[in-house]
């Protein structure tokens, strides 16, 4: 009896100690002198979001703000993200930066934030909510157009290309394909096939192989994301072809593939800038200054010439 009680007590005390150790006490003390910005991302457990996290953290250091960065354990933990935003509001931050996994799910909580007077800035993914302070993200049509131009540079008028799209109805990848198609057709390059591969590597490999059965004479490929570009490259190599392939996103794997010569280039999004500029503009909004409703975080064209530099930049962000 006594033993059990003392065991339970020991456990609870240990838990208390662990919790005290974990809690951000210094942040609480400093909270009054510095503005607090809470950043809630889709997750913190993938490379892309690590870049956003790193940018947000750096902005906090540069602008003397208390930046708290949170995210559920996976992009699929949708209700966890809703709870996280709701719980963060309890702490009355000066502003919040959020990247919604499923945009409609967060709108009830955003309305609550509005009532409390907490400005909400969205990064990477927009939500259909008029009262947001701003949306910072890639302009996907521009990204696609740049990709189309990059591919056209390596081809001549009359050449045939293939477009591989993301999942049907994915607005981001659809916009990229649309931009790429525009740019290619402007340069009189023919799109002979366009098919979705759900942003997935293996799917893109299969789709590309099928297309090659019908069009073995293509001169180039554009894929709406990097994973699909890497998958398509495998299929192209299996058919002993050598044609330029362009992706979009700028993942480390894609940049490595460019260095190896498997991909001709990619249009890199700027997740680090999204995090950095998200926090900077959140601070502006918290200080009562005006913020543009739509901020294009821009893209960068990565090809063999600058791939090495990009790679070391990305690795530095991740602390590798």
């Amino acid at each position, binding site marked *: *009896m006594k*033993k*059990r*009680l003392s*065991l*339970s007590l020991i*456990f*609870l005390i240990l*838990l*208390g100690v*662990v*919790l*005290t150790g*974990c*809690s*951000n006490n210094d*942040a609480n003390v400093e909270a009054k002198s510095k503005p607090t910005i809470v950043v809630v991302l889709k997750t*913190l*457990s993938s490379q892309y979001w690590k870049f956003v996290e790193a940018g947000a953290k750096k902005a906090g250091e540069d602008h003397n703000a208390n930046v*708290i960065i*949170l*995210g*559920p*354990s996976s992009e*699929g*933990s*949708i*209700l*966890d993200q*809703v*709870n*996280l935003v*709701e*719980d*963060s509001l*309890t*702490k009355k931050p000066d502003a919040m930066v959020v990247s919604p996994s*499923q945009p*409609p*799910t*967060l*709108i*009830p909580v955003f309305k609550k934030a509005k009532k409390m007077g907490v400005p909400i800035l969205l990064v990477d993914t927009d939500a259909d909510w008029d009262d947001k302070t701003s949306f910072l993200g890639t302009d996907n049509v521009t990204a696609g157009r740049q990709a189309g131009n990059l591919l056209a540079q390596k081809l001549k008028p009359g050449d045939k290309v293939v477009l591989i799209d993301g*999942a*049907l*109805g994915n607005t981001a990848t659809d916009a990229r394909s649309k931009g790429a198609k525009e740019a290619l057709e402007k340069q009189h390059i023919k799109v002979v096939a366009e098919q979705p591969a759900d942003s997935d590597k293996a799917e893109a490999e299969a789709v590309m192989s099928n297309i090659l059965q019908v069009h073995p004479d293509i001169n180039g490929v554009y894929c709406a994301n990097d994973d699909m570009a890497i998958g398509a490259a495998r299929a192209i190599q299996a058919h002993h072809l050598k044609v330029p392939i362009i992706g979009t996103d700028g993942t480390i794997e894609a940049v490595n593939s460019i260095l190896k010569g498997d991909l001709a280039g990619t249009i890199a999004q700027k997740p680090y800038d999204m995090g950095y500029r998200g926090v900077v503009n959140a601070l502006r909004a918290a200080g009562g200054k005006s913020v543009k409703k739509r901020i294009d975080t821009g893209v960068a064209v990565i090809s063999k010439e600058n791939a090495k530099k990009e790679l070391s930049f990305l690795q530095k962000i991740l602390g590798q």
Partner: protein
Amino acid sequence: MANVAFDENQEIVKEKKTVKAFLNKFGSLIGLILLCLILAILNRDFLSLNNIMNIARQSSINALLAIGMLLPILTAGIDLSIGSILALSIMCMGIAVVNMGLNPIAGLIICVGTGALCGWVNGILLTKLRLPHPFISTLGMMNIARGLALIITAAAPIAGFPMAVQFLGSSFAGPIPVSFILVVIIYILFHLFLTRTATGKYIYAIGGNRDAAHLSGINVDRVLILVYTLSGLMSGLAGLVLVGRVNSAFPLAGLDYELDAIAAVIIGGASFFGGVGTVWGTMVGTLIIAVLRNGLNLMNITSDLQKTIIGIVIIAAVFVDVLRQRASKKQ
């Protein structure tokens, strides 16, 4: 003199016994209260009315799933399919109400009905197909229902539900969320069902000793089918609350929710071997998980570390239970 001393001893023994009975009955409740105290000391926002109502809201979905899960666990079974059934139920409702423009009340019935139907199939698979353990039938259903939820809408979310559908998950009665009032009503009904009806007692009896229950004339199959149907029905109801809370239905809703529900039931003192467990214990278990998650969120503790801490709490809670049983056997 001697008499007095004797009396005192008696008194002490008595006191010890009542303390012990009290601890046995309210052990996890005391744990919950201590946890709240620790979190309140560590975080000044924890005890604000706003935050307490957040906890009430955030716990209600798992509370509904956990009370559904209690029934299979009482019969020494398990239901792994509740999270997937939740997703299928809300997607069916989404198609009916938003895409086809059906009456919202019909949508509510479709949602809860789909849940109950899937649960009934679980029961049939277990009893009529004689699959060896509900782990298997409900594991199958978990995959089937999730797959169907993705297929019927081509994996796209559905938004724009009418207020009548969102009412349960999004409305407040004064400061109190309607979803939590629903939880309290459902828990009272389940308590009455399990303690005051013959079927409720059969459920405990089947968990205690299935063969004995069968021999004493209980229609075990019928009770088991009812148990899994109710579990599925609660998934549909939890789905209604979720849709109201997040203003949309999406096919990945409820992913891994069965694990939180199992954790709540087990922390609440139910035994995996069946026959042991109460409605109020399940409520305390649900609240312990919700309070812990909320408190850790308030302290900016990452989701990865949260998982670890909740894992430790599950093991610790069951370990305390094991010690308690060992101690009572010794006597």
